[in-house]
């Protein structure tokens, strides 16, 4: 049976035991209880039921104390007793003195007592707390909590709150400059940047960060706009920390909802491994930045993946990927060799989805050679040229080693 009466705000056990300490008979205590109910506008239980609970609580209390029962449950909420003292016009000093004696195991905090005594004295009679809020409201509050540290702190307050937090949709990515960034630097430390909050972690915290990462990623309701992983250098043959991150991704029971995955790595085989953990169709944009030696062979698997085929935008920095792999993209940024520019233009002329691309070269562009090869026509703008027999224009970008091709 639930705590009596089931829909009452009042902690009847604390109230009855306090009255018992004050040597009130069951009848006197009931009158006191009725005054309390009248004051807070709550319907009182009948005198008979109240007497039943008086006997029950007295008996339990007596037996537990006489046997030093380890299952004895101390009273935790004395606010109704404080309100009763206020209604009965007891002074604050006498009130706390009586409460300390009545509930010796509780160690009544004076500051806390004074707060409630004064509050009740000023006519504020209810005390809704966070815990009184229904789970769906708490879940909404958690869903607005876009600060990662707060998110973690809330999880650690209590089991109930943790269960709510873990089943709520996290706020990350909905507001603010939200993304998760995991950076491995040459000292093999992890830096975790989530939301606007940045903290530096040392090697000892690696496991903690991975746990946090797992905690966030394992929430099936997580929806990220950006997931950024930066893997700076390979310091030795072992990719220990990166393998650990990949293990976290592989341990998930679901594919991640990520719109833009940005991955910087010196080790290309990781690219398809991570992309495989992302939901195809949701992934709109992929940014891959190569750090050291390109190993394009390992990307073959990537080009066959649905995630690649369904993405709309790609940025491939310092990677010379064959142009046919970009045919389905709406936009792409890529490095190419100058000799393949004709091939690129022919490909995008026939592409249905193409809107624009930025092509980068490893050296200063020979504009005259480009004009000749593509038979470019000058437009009104000095750096913009049209491509004959197409709806494409080329702009020479200021750095002189990049061009932008746009469909008009």
């Amino acid at each position, binding site marked *: 049976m639930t705590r009596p009466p089931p829909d009452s705000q009042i902690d009847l056990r604390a109230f009855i035991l306090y009255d018992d300490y004050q040597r009130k008979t069951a009848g006197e205590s009931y009158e006191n209880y009725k005054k309390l109910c009248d004051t807070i506008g709550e319907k009182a239980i009948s005198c008979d039921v109240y007497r039943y609970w008086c006997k029950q609580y007295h008996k339990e209390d007596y037996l537990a104390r006489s046997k030093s029962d380890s299952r004895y449950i101390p009273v935790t909420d004395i606010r109704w007793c404080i309100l009763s003292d*206020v209604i009965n*016009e007891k002074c604050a000093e006498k009130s706390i003195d009586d409460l300390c004696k009545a509930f010796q195991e509780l160690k009544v905090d004076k500051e806390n007592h004074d707060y409630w005594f004064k509050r009740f004295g000023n006519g504020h009679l209810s005390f809704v707390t966070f*815990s009184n809020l229904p789970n769906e409201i708490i879940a909404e509050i958690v869903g607005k909590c876009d600060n990662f*540290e707060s998110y973690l702190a*809330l999880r650690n307050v*209590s089991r109930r709150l943790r269960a709510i937090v873990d089943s709520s949709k996290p706020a990350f990515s909905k*507001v*603010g400059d939200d993304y998760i960034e995991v950076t491995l630097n040459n000292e093999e430390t992890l830096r975790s940047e989530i939301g606007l909050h940045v903290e530096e972690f040392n090697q000892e915290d690696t496991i903690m960060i991975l746990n946090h990462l797992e905690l966030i990623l394992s929430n099936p309701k997580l929806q990220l*706009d950006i997931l950024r992983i930066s893997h700076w250098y390979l310091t030795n043959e072992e990719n220990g920390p990166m393998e650990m991150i990949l293990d976290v991704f592989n341990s998930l029971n679901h594919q991640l909802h990520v719109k833009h995955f940005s991955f910087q790595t010196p080790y290309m085989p990781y690219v398809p491994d991570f992309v495989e953990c992302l939901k195809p169709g949701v992934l*709109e944009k992929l940014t891959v930045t190569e750090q050291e030696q390109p190993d394009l062979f390992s990307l073959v698997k990537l080009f066959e993946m649905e995630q690649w085929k369904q993405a709309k935008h790609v940025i491939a920095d310092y990677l010379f990927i064959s142009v046919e792999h970009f045919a389905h993209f709406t936009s792409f940024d890529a490095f190419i060799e100058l000799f393949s520019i004709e091939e690129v233009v022919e490909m995008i002329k026939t592409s249905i989805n193409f809107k624009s691309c930025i092509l980068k070269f490893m050296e200063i562009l020979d504009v005259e050679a480009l004009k000749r090869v593509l038979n470019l026509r000058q437009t009104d703008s000095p750096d913009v040229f049209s491509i004959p027999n197409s709806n494409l224009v080329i702009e020479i970008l200021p750095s002189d080693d990049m061009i932008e091709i746009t469909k008009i």
Partner: protein
Amino acid sequence: MSVEPEVPIVQVEEVRENPVLYKIISSDNHVFTISEHAVKLSKTLWDLITNLGLTAENALDNPIPVENVNGKNMETIVQFCERHKYDEEEPEYTNYIREFVLPEWDRQLLSIDNEELFQLILATNYLDIQKLMDYCCRVIGDMAKDKTPEELRIIYGIPTDAEDDALERSASDSPGPSG
């Protein structure tokens, strides 16, 4: 001691361009006047008005009793709805990431003590006012910034696991009166 909350009767200044007004009576019998545009922000109230068939002609003669919301919360809610009644709908979330900033007027309105805020959120949830719900949730969520779990337990008044267990044991151990 005085146990009656002192809540003034609020007559919300009505804009001239919309003459349709409704009367709402809070649980403690305070009467509020609210404009049609403002009351529409509350799905619960607007459904009630629609179901009761209230019109511009008979609205003021038929006050709507709201038993679950007291005068203090209703005052805040009416102020909020009047303030936001002409707000445009929030644009759908797009690829562009934007930072939410609680408007200063609303921050002032919601600068109340925690318990009042918790009561307000319950009232808002009952009246189904999504925008106020979002704002209240955000203010409560912001309280958690830079706090330890122990500080949060105190701020939010959350029982420890041991206290939760004790309460559960207390509930299950009590046989209850017969009959």
